[in-house]
């Protein structure tokens, strides 16, 4: 479904990604793990055309999307929920969700249903529909970011560090919901520093070490892999 072929990205003189190959198949949860600064977010941003690639190519459903701008990719079926939530703090929860469905304008019934669905997943948001999103707690904002990215009805969801800064029980809940969304047919590329949790929900995983893929395997085998345990799972 999504394929990166030897993609490199430079920020000026620094090469943040070098020759990254990565594949995500329909229906999978794939996770990209790695230490802080390894280039995980850069990978996501390159897929969405937010940073230019210096070489290599990116394909989605058989079409090359290497230079397609981010807003067109949303129409093609790729939604990204970026690092740091990035909700529209100056707008209400409802307006944030409606903006998530920006490409579906006019389909009022669908948008209404999808908002109900988001409220089912995150009941705490429904109590705060008309509240300004900036007044939500960190966890609630993370839920809103998640809900907002579902409103586009993506085929592929790119999720950058959904568990960042959340209380442990919220982390559990977020991963549970990722699994649920995936069961409903959304393919997911999940970026995480919380490698242990990510490997438990994912089918396959890539480990990124300063700009290049170090290992890739099924999540199960990586969880058992001693090197990976030592380097990324702590303890």
């Amino acid at each position, binding site marked *: 479904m999504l394929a990166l072929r030897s993609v490199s990205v430079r920020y000026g003189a620094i090469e943040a990604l070098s020759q990254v190959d990565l594949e995500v198949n329909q229906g999978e949860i794939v996770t990209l793990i790695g230490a802080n600064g390894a280039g995980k977010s850069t990978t996501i941003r390159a897929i969405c055309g937010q940073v230019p690639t210096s070489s290599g190519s990116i394909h989605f459903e058989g079409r090359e999307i290497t230079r397609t701008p981010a807003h067109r990719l949303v129409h093609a079926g790729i939604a*990204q929920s*970026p690092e740091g939530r990035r909700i529209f703090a100056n707008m209400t929860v409802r*307006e944030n969700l409606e903006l998530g469905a920006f490409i579906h304008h006019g389909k009022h019934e669908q948008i209404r249903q999808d908002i109900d669905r988001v409220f089912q997943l995150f009941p705490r948001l429904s109590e705060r529909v008309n509240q300004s999103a900036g007044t939500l707690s960190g966890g609630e904002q993370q839920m809103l970011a998640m809900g907002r990215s579902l409103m586009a009805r993506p085929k592929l969801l790119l999720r950058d560090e959904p568990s960042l800064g959340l209380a442990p029980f919220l982390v559990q809940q977020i991963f549970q919901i990722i699994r649920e969304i995936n069961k409903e047919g959304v393919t997911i590329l999940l970026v995480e520093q919380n490698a242990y949790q990510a490997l438990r929900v994912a089918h396959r995983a890539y480990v990124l070490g300063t700009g290049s893929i170090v290992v890739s395997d099924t999540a199960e085998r990586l969880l058992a892999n001693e090197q990976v345990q030592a380097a990324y799972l702590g303890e």
Partner: protein
Amino acid sequence: MQQIAQQLIYGIQLGSLYALIALGYTMVYGVLRLINFAHGDVYMVGAFVGFYACTRWLPFKDLAVHPEAAGANIALAVVALLLAMAICSAMGVLIERFAYRPLRNGLQKADAHFWGLVLGFPITGLFMPVFNGWGPLVAVVVGVGVGFAMRPLVAWLARRVKLSESRLNALITAIGVSLLLENGGLLVFGANPNFIPNILPERTYMLPGGVMVGSSQLTILGVSLVLMLSLRYIVMYTRPGKAMRAISHDIEAAKLMGIDTDRVIAFTFALGGSLAGAGGAMVAALTHVKITPLFGLLPGLKAFVAAVLGGAGSLPGAMVGGLLMGSAESFVAGSSLSMFRDAIAFCVLIIILLVRPAGLMGRHVPEKV
């Protein structure tokens, strides 16, 4: 007391015009973090459109000769207003498309064509004595030809200069566009001041306390109010308006919602341009002020100060800022310090930058980490 009320009414008239212009500054600042210094010149173009519409393009009748034509003239004035708004919004879009967008997305082929043409005409103009005998059509054809020939030069320059998103480049570009419009205006409209004769019925109403209000003042206030309320509706409740607000909060996140940010930015310039155009046309048609191609300069600067005073990026701030600036100017003009009426804007700017740089209604957004 009556004196003060009278000054206040003049201040509100002036202030609603400043507010109309300030809204354009603040909206563009909101979406692009750019001070569009060419905005005051868009207002000037609005005034000239108003002038030509009232004196040449539309069949207005001189009320001194045909007093019965008042009704027809009012209808025509509405047409003139809409015309100025349409032309100025198109100008806003053009400025965005050819001056600011290349700074964001790089200079495309179409941009190079455009700038080649812009350069081509003045260059042809230098050789005007040669063409004088041949008539204007030949001069235009040669101008276009020279323009297309300039294209590779423009493209080469753009590659050399390396356009980038730097704030300084944007600022220099904005000032450049402003100079281009002012000098282009001198070329097209000439340097002589123009003014419009009485074409609308002028009545004066006496308010309790002996304060006088003219119908033109009421018109300016009423039209400004309607436009500002429409703007508020567009920004709060329509799809492009919501997209504008999303962009002004976080343009990258807005792209991830599938928003075509370039289109929404163009829409923002169109809105701002139409408000400035309406302001310019009203000034030209209703206040008998003399209009010249440099006439947008001072109101533009004062409206910019109004936008900063209200809080850059805040729409209610621009309205309040405009009214405050208008009133302040009116009171200074009516006092013994009247020669400082234009200086008050700069005093306000300095004070606000020292005391409260985020403005009265601006939220102070900390730098993103």
